[in-house]
């Protein structure tokens, strides 16, 4: 173990941007996740069991045709939201439990950490939706008149879910009683988004005039505002 004569090992530095740091954190999280499958397993298993329970107890014919668009939208979003709440705090909680949180605080800028974790959570949500939504549509016989609007609602709804929960995850990772706290703190913040998403999915399924896709716009606005506010507030809870 002999450093070079100058006493230094690596001397060349390149300028790093928030985005490049965030991407580094995102890729690292993905790599860890790919090896341990901790968050994705808990999220997907939760989602699949709930989906099976719902599908088994309701089936595709129990609910009348006219009621379906609304009730199915409610069920779908309940499954999605609670599965997300069961696992989205993992990325921060794991740093805390493995003792790597301080080293991350020492090496990366707080905004980059937030963005990296946000990207990771959004990836998890994308995986969740890509598996659960088609499965739900097939199992429940969910007819959707406007697929474009439906997909847009899923995308903006997922963005909003990630945006509204990432900062809370960072807080509860540093508090006691982590498991229960995450849902308790996130749910009130997510309520407007959930209501909007249910309304939007129902509209897409009914096929009533969806001019302008108002719910998609509200969900997108929610996501943008939550991300902006979180970026501003995150350094406060991340640094001592």
């Amino acid at each position, binding site marked *: 173990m002999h450093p070079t004569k100058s006493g230094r090992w690596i001397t060349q530095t390149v300028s790093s941007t928030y985005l490049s740091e965030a991407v580094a954190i995102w890729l690292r999280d993905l790599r860890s996740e790919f090896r341990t499958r901790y968050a994705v397993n808990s999220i997907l298993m939760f989602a699949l069991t709930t989906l099976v329970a719902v599908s088994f107890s309701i089936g595709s014919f129990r609910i009348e045709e006219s009621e379906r668009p609304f009730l199915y939208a409610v069920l779908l979003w309940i499954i999605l939201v609670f599965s997300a709440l069961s696992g989205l705090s993992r990325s921060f909680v794991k740093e805390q439990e493995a003792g790597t949180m301080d080293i991350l605080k020492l090496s990366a800028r707080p905004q980059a950490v937030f963005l990296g974790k946000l990207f990771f959570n959004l990836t998890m949500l994308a995986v969740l939706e890509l598996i659960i939504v088609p499965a739900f549509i097939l199992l429940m016989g969910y007819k959707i008149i406007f697929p474009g609007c439906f997909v847009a609602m899923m995308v903006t709804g997922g963005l909003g879910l990630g945006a509204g929960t990432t900062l809370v995850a960072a*807080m509860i990772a540093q508090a006691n009683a982590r498991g229960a706290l995450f849902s308790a*703190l996130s749910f009130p913040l997510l309520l407007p988004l959930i209501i909007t998403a249910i309304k939007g999915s129902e509209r897409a399924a009914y096929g009533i005039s969806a001019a302008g896709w108002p719910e998609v716009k509200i969900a997108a606005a929610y996501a943008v505002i939550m991300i902006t506010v979180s970026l501003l507030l995150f350094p*406060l809870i991340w640094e001592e």
Partner: protein
Amino acid sequence: MIYKILLTIWMNLIIAAVFLYVEPAAGFPGEVSRILFFHVPTAWVATLAFLLSMIASSVYLITRKVNADFLAQSSAELGFLFCFLATVTGSIFAKATWGSFWNWDPRQTSIVMLLMIYGAYFVLRSAVPDHEKRRMFAGVYSILAFCTVPFLVFVVPRITTSLHPEDTLNPANPGMDIKTLIFFLGSLCAYTGLFVWMLRLKVRMLRIMDREQRAFRSNF
């Protein structure tokens, strides 16, 4: 001390007058409309308290002055209390006029969401052992929650239609008779005064507790 005595007299006068002097408003069964003098001021105080709490939280995050956090915490607790009272009085009124205690009227929906947000706020406060971190987290959460409120205001009325009496019992409405208006405003002042008194007590209590702790420390 003098403040407390004046407040007691004022509140008693208002309560007596509201039951004995003011006639019930037309269009409501029996004595039901008298709830105006109690329900609306509690809701007003709750709104005021939550707004104050949110402003004090922001001030704490900027200045890191402990006093601002004491104000934020006390104000949130009192706001929760008054919000709960408003929910209860409102739902008694709902039972008397619409026949059910609860029917997810937009007002009821938003008040429940407020209760949930601040319930979570207190849970968060109790879950962080470190004082400084607790104050910081509470402030951050309260601002984050505040940012979702505009969405609620925008989203909730699109889902359910309101049965909430706006016109017949709206103080700004010229239809309200002058006697009712005067005592309504009197009651509003009384409740605000009550809130200010309770808030000062609570803040003083937190300050004394903090001072005791500091004194205990400096003994070492």
